[in-house]
């Protein structure tokens, strides 16, 4: 056993010696690596075998001035034109990543003007969205099927079904029921779907190879959807007292008339609440991906730090050990963050909904009775 460990250590050290051929200084574009991963793209770049990139080309669906077009993203040329754009069919180009307007997006060239068409392409993030949705459905429908096929007095479920039951109930009782009380069953399906959708997407984002590796919850479009839906549910189910507390709160009258200071602040609060949800989830997950990628990129930067091959080798090998250790640590931290962010989102959504369901202060003593 002891010898085995030593042998493994030697093997790992030899493995770090492998990139010895890196000698000449190369410029590593960390920004491109980072943005390339964090931002959406029309194809799924998996890895590079030798000089040949392994890419999954995804379907493009656009509504241009010449109508609907559905084609494969491989029809865009790999070669970039003078502007750094990638030309494709139907006067469409994928804009340069550094462009001012619509970087990395499909635009249509109409008479010298660049117009953004209605673009519902299955991009990398949409693809990840589909995969996550299927995983989520499997994770919930399998335990639900068990429930339909068993009676109350059957033996307890084992394994995955048992785990999911426990997981769902932990979120339900500790977060939703604790916050919403009697109204919990009404909002539980929505909040639980949000929780598990975010959690699955976060966890799949950590997995570094397909079907994982996408950056769904770190994309603002995804979090905007969650924020807007929470905003809509909160305000459309709000009680009369909720709106009264916003426009005529119980504060000294000079705070309300002639200058409606408190109503203004309260009204502002309606929008900041979901905005906080949007930004929190987006920033947390994006930062997690950025850090994980940065630690990986450090290895390649250090192998190209100087003109001297020996110095590169020493710096790169040393940094590899540090970077791998830090990456492992960050990965574990990200797993924790995945859970915490999903939980925080669900908890805050539940709190916002419960705040919108305030009963009038006169009615409260009756409830106590």
């Amino acid at each position, binding site marked *: 056993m002891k010898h085995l460990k030593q042998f493994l250590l030697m093997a790992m050290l030899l493995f770090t010696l492998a990139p010895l051929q890196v000698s000449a200084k190369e410029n590593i574009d960390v920004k491109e690596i980072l943005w390339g991963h*964090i*931002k*959406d793209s029309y194809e799924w770049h998996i890895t590079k075998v030798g000089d040949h990139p392994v890419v999954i080309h995804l379907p493009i669906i656009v509504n241009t001035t010449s109508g609907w077009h559905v084609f494969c993203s491989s029809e865009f040329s790999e070669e970039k034109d003078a502007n750094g754009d990638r030309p494709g069919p139907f006067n469409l180009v994928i804009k340069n990543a550094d462009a001012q307007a*619509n*970087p990395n*997006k499909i635009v249509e060239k109409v008479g010298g003007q660049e117009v953004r068409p*209605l*673009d*519902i*392409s*299955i*991009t990398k*993030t*949409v693809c990840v*969205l*589909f995969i996550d*949705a299927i995983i*989520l*459905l499997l994770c*919930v*429908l399998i*335990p*639900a099927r068990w*429930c*339909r096929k*068993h009676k*109350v*007095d059957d033996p*307890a479920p084992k394994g995955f079904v048992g785990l*999911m*039951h426990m997981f*769902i*109930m932990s979120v*339900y009782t500790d977060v939703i029921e604790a916050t919403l009380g009697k109204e919990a*069953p009404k909002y*539980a*399906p*929505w909040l*639980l*779907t949000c929780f598990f*959708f975010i959690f699955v997407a976060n966890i799949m984002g950590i997995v570094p190879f397909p079907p994982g590796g996408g950056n769904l919850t770190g*994309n*603002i*479009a*995804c979090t*905007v*959807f969650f924020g807007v839906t929470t905003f809509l549910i909160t305000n459309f189910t709000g009680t009369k007292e909720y709106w009264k507390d916003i426009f005529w709160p119980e504060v000294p009258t000079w705070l309300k008339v002639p200058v409606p200071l408190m109503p203004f602040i309260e009204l502002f609060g309606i929008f900041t609440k979901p905005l906080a949800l949007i930004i929190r989830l987006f920033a947390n997950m*994006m930062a997690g991906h950025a850090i994980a990628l940065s630690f990986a990129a450090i290895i390649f930067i250090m192998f190209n730090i100087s003109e001297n091959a020996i110095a590169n080798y020493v710096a790169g090998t040393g940094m590899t050990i540090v970077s791998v250790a830090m990456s492992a640590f960050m990965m574990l931290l990200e797993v924790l963050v995945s859970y915490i962010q999903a939980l925080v989102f669900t908890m805050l959504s539940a709190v916002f909904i419960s705040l919108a369901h305030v009963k009038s202060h006169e009615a409260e003593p009756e409830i106590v009775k």
Partner: protein
Amino acid sequence: MDLLIPDSGLLFWMTLVFIIVFIILWKAGFPAIIKMVTDRKAFIDESLKKAHEANEKLANIQKEGESILQEAREKQAAILKEAADTRDAIVEKAQDKAREEGARLLSDAKAQIETEKQNAIREIRGQVAELSVQIAEKVLKAKLSDDKAQMDMINRLLDEVSSDNKQ
């Protein structure tokens, strides 16, 4: 900055996919699981309560059984004691009766013996008197064979009678 602008295409797919997923999970997922787990919890709690009650009942039954046994033992002891007392009383009574009977028999026997004795004595006396009269007759015949003796006798008897009268 484009990082902070939601892409319309992704937003469209996100809305579509999420709402489909939500409806499926709403109709077939979460409520079923929550209901099942809540029901199971209630069932398990109920079963535990019942088991607890049954245990308590069992302990009570054991205690009751012990008390019944104890009572039975006490009753048995009491009955045994009573039986012994009765036996003793009966034996004593019998002994008393026997003693009395014995005494009575003894006294009867004694009385009979006494009567027999008296009878025997009376008989003997009669016989003796008869015998003595016969003997006296014979003696008197022998003694009064002559006149002189007869005269003495008459005189003496007369004396005796006179002395008796004087008194």
